[in-house]
């Protein structure tokens, strides 16, 4: 029995090695996706509407404000006279960004203390939020530099520090945010597509019929087909983690073994879907279409692209039917916040239920359809 499974696995690996498309999908694609998405999220959005609440009204605050206005990243839409008015402007969509300068802003600089300014950002569009924060930090740093010019000795003093407040979706803050999502997506994409393809290809070429005549059992075939693609999926994740670390400087905050363990749990459901697709597709083209059809809601509703918090209630509920939704919460928890099972179990339980159910049903169907 194991020798039969081993034969399948060995054959599968030889085929992966010989097929440049699969190989590219396993190794190059994750890195490429990560770089693409990483930069897509960094694409510069300019002329962001900005409202200002300046309580300080001194030379320094005016210098900072004009710097904001001069860079081109922001368009100053007006001055308001309360924090609530800033929030209201953002709520209403009149502004994407608000700059709040406290009464002691200029005094603190004069007294060579760290002067706090607040940048309030609409986080519902991560792209905008990224740009606003990045640009804001640069401007603050530049102004900070210039106000310190006369006194180079006390470098840390008299600096302007920009405190970000992100509305709607605080965790949208950093570039890191998309990396866990991308890893989840790569895992799902690879196992789902490659597993489905590996089986449908054999049906297309007639070798599946040949296999059915051999003593191999359908579950042995299934295991033999799954193991290589789980292995390659984890390889892809390793590549993605490496690129994230080397290129973007993102490190996993939490436990790596836990990440691998829960990833395996997540893989159950995407493998299940892959198997299911393989039982209903006659050609690889059909399998591809079905896979895209399945993947699209995952991308849109899981919170990978758009924050779930800003979705209508009914769409949020639909998102709860997608395994990737839970897995993203787990991944972000482990990678960014460094939390463990004690916090994550609320996502782990539904993920496990989905995984066992989807995989079980698909495996049963796979058995029947082959026999």
């Amino acid at each position: 029995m194991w020798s039969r499974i081993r034969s399948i696995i060995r054959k599968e690996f030889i085929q992966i090695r010989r097929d440049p498309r699969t190989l590219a999908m396993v190794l190059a694609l994750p890195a490429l996706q990560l770089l693409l998405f990483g930069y897509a999220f960094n694409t510069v959005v300019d002329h962001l509407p900005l409202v200002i609440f300046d309580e300080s009204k001194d030379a320094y605050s005016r210098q900072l404000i004009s710097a904001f206005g001069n860079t081109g990243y922001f368009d100053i839409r007006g001055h308001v006279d309360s924090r609530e008015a800033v929030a209201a402007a953002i709520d209403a969509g009149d502004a994407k960004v608000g700059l709040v300068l406290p009464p002691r802003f200029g005094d603190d600089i004069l007294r060579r203390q760290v002067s706090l300014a607040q940048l309030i950002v609409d986080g519902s569009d991560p792209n905008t939020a990224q740009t606003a924060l990045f640009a804001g930090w640069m401007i603050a740093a530049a102004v900070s530099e210039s106000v310190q010019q006369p006194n180079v000795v006390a470098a840390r003093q008299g600096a302007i520090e920009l405190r970000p407040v992100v509305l709607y979706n605080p965790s949208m803050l950093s570039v890191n945010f998309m990396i866990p999502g991308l890893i989840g997506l790569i895992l799902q994409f690879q196992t789902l597509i490659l597993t489905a393809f590996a089986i449908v290809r054999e049906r297309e070429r007639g070798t599946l019929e040949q296999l059915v005549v051999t003593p191999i059992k359908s579950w042995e075939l299934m295991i033999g087909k799954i193991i290589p693609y789980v292995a390659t999926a984890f390889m892809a994740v390793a590549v993605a983690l490496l690129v994230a670390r080397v290129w973007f400087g993102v490190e996993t905050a939490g436990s790596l073994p836990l990440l691998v363990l829960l990833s395996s749990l997540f893989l159950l459901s995407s493998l299940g879907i892959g198997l299911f697709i393989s039982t209903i597709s006659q050609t690889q083209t059909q399998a591809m279409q079905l896979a895209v059809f399945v993947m699209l809601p995952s991308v849109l509703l899981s919170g990978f692209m758009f924050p779930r918090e800003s979705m209508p209630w009914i769409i949020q509920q639909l998102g709860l039917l997608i395994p990737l939704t839970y897995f993203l919460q787990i991944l972000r928890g482990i990678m960014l916040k460094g939390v463990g099972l004690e916090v994550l179990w609320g996502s782990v339980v539904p993920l496990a239920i989905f995984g066992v159910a989807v995989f079980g049903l698909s495996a049963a169907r796979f058995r029947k359809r082959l026999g």
Partner: protein
Amino acid sequence: MTASDVAPVISVRALTKRFGDLVAVDALTFEVQRGEVFAFLGPNGSGKSTTIRMLCGILEPTSGEGRVLGFDIAREGERVKQQIGYMSQRFALYEDLTVRENLEFYAGVYQVAGASLSGRLDELMTMAGLQDRQGQLAGSLSGGWKQRLALGCAIVHNPPLLFLDEPTAGVDPVSRRRFWTMIYGLAQGGVTVFVTTHYLDEAEHANRVAMIHGGTLRALASPAELKRSAMQGQLLNVTCASPMEAAALLERAPGVNEVALYGAAIHVLVDPTRTSEESVSDWLSDHGIAVGNVAPIEPTLEDVFVSLIGTATVATGQSTTR
């Protein structure tokens, strides 16, 4: 002799397969004995593959029953798998694996292991003449090589029963001959071979031939017997001017049972008690056809087949002219 030695290797009774309204295989009943080369002869769509797939346990029969090597094909399909070899109509090779890797893969699946493995692989490669191509990708082999490799994969576990579904389709005559030599070798070693074909000359090589058409069995006997019994009367070969017109005329001639066109010639089956070569010749001349030659001939399987099926549309040409 034990019971299993004399029991038929394959026996089917009223085996039937329907696809919706289409009856692909209609109540087949036959037996195949141990060591036989059993040819299943029929035109495209006659139900050959469907029958073979039911016997291999890939397809469930709609009704009827069958036993292969003593196992019920509907209920005990799994148990028979280790003991049969199957070569499907499309050579099911992994094109991105080398010759040797293909053999190794099937050896693994059939659990041909350990010390016997490399000996067996060498033996198969020698048999198929593939020693020099071990490292070549199967996809880059030409038809004849692919066919022999597929056979090698199907018999890697030394099965006592071998199913071949149109193994020589699309393969050149030299490769076909070589392939049949291999098949005879296997049969001499006691392997039972069930082979489908629509090449009539190939069926001549078999011990027995089952003729199938539209899913039903039309005849089952040795090639010699078929020719003797199935043709009622004397077969004449007629050459003449405008054969099409002549054939149409002959249909109406007295004492003529059947007429079939063979290229420029006409085969005419006559009742020797009612007519003769001379009267056929005269009859044609009387109707204004210039007759070349009328001579008695031995029937080929093709004549038998045409006679049984009653149409001249079957796999002509390819087989008899080669």
